[in-house]
């Protein structure tokens, strides 16, 4: 098939935008495997003349992030320790809430759901001051546990939204029939709803994982050096004003912070997109 000029133009524009979106990734990648002076001498766009993994090694285990030169490794682990329990708890609670709100409806449930939903959209600045005090009161200040707690509290709104929208399309007659057969509330949930929740659980987990891994505001507000997540540590690394700016190390660190979510996006992009779309309430 021959291409008409209009088609050629079309592909050229689409290709140009591919370059635009890939450019920062390219910049991060090539400069993370380059000696520093190749960057400072104006060669940011060029492939390395000397290839080196030293910046990666440096960013991971040697760079001065906090008080000690530990590299980003402990902060990467903090993020993992934070994200796994927070996602798990918020997802389980969201599934139960969605189940109640669609299969065991009661007067006023839509209003309650609406009130929960508003929690997805509030600017978190409005809760920073009282949350800082509450975490102190709960003895969770500056701990990974405190961050898990905060992320669960503000993640429930999202997970409830996902499961409610999904379960509302699930036939309620099946639930009523099981009830007549004598199955109880939890049996129905466990035996009928949960086995059919695969796709929405994936969407919900991906969404929460991405949001919590990428969070900066809560991490910056409620953690100390022992519990800082990866995003906060990366920002400290890049903003630190002492000594020479090691751009190649910064880029390597940025890729490390991006890898987990990028990995999820590439292996499960379809679900990622569906999660984004459900931002429009009805999904």
């Amino acid at each position, binding site marked *: 098939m021959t291409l008409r000029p209009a088609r050629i133009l079309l592909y050229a524009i689409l290709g140009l935008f591919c370059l635009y979106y890939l450019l920062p990734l390219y910049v991060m990648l090539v400069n993370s495997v380059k000696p520093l002076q190749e960057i400072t001498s104006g060669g940011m766009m060029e492939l390395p003349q000397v290839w080196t993994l030293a910046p990666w090694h440096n960013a991971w285990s040697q760079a001065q992030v906090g008080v000690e030169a530990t590299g980003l490794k402990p902060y990467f682990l903090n993020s993992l320790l934070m994200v796994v329990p927070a996602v798990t708890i918020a997802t389980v609670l969201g599934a139960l*809430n969605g189940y109640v709100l669609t299969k065991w409806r009661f007067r006023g449930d839509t209003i309650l759901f609406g009130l929960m939903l508003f929690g997805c959209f509030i600017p978190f600045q409005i809760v920073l001051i009282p949350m800082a005090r509450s975490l102190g009161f709960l003895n969770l200040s500056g701990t990974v546990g405190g961050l898990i707690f905060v992320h669960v509290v503000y993640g429930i709104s999202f997970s409830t939204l996902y499961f409610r929208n999904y379960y509302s399309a699930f036939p309620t007659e099946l639930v009523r029939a099981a009830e007549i057969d004598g199955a109880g509330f939890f049996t129905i949930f466990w035996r009928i709803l949960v086995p059919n929740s695969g796709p929405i659980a994936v969407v919900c987990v991906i969404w929460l994982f991405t949001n919590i891994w990428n969070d900066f505001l809560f991490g910056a507000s409620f953690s100390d050096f022992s519990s800082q997540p990866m995003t906060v540590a990366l920002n400290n690394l890049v903003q630190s004003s002492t000594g020479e700016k090691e751009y190649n190390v910064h880029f390597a660190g940025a890729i490390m912070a991006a890898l987990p979510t990028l990995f999820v996006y590439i292996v499960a992009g379809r679900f990622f997109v569906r999660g984004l779309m459900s931002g429009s309430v009805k999904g």
Partner: protein
Amino acid sequence: MAAHPAPSARARLRVLLPRLVLSPSLALVAFFVYGFIAFTTYLSFSDSKMLPSYGWVGFQNYETLFSLRMWDIAVTNLAIFGILYIVICSFLGLMLAILLDQHIRAEGFIRTVYLYPMALSFIVTGVAWKWFLDPGIGLEAVMHDWGWTSFEFRWIKDRDMAIYTIVIAAVWQTSGFVMATFLAGLRGIDSEMLKAARVDGAGTFAVYRRIVIPQLRPAFLSAFVVLAHMAIKSYDLVVALTNGGPGNATAVPSTFMYSYTFTRNQMGIGAASAEIMLLTIAAVIIPYLWSELKEDKR
């Protein structure tokens, strides 16, 4: 009623158990969302400085807030950033979606490339663009190295232009998402209707302007709601890209709130600024949630 105690207990359990299961989450939201909003609202009318304090001062914090030059800068910046961000993202997103909807080969690959920035943290985006836009090593230095020695691009160091670098990075991050929203909208349009219009002699441009774009209203609405609330909440990107600088040139309400509350020890004013942010978002979100959930009511 006491004659049938067993069924009545069961029936009561049947009614109570679901509410019992829902109640921990409701309690968390009631306390940590609405209780905290109430608490911060109270603080915004109090004489809190470094720590919360409960002396009532009426609207004094709001009066001070509105007289502060830095708040003025923050609001102006948010207006510039928000409008440009929403308009450019919507325009780019719609254009890319329409172009991608022309039976493109490798559509899946292109979509993946356009959308991946959405998976990244704003801190990562900020770092990448911060150094790319830095005149010392980024675009300007590269152009000089390539021989175009008169090339100048130092917006990120320029008090008047720095806010636009935040627009550049934010558009890069989110426009792919808007594209995906519109693409989903385009795929939902009845193709028979388009064929009929073509048969009636309507050109491609007219078909899009008269038939397709008007039908994308729901997609426009959800893109607007998501972008507007992201713009008001944006904090990480500003911190990573310019840290509010040069000087205060790129301060936005979210960075203002943080700095007044936690570094300048003016908690009352910080709370008042958070209140304004909340009200602005509520003005966008509440009508939207209301209209979306209205039909669901029994």
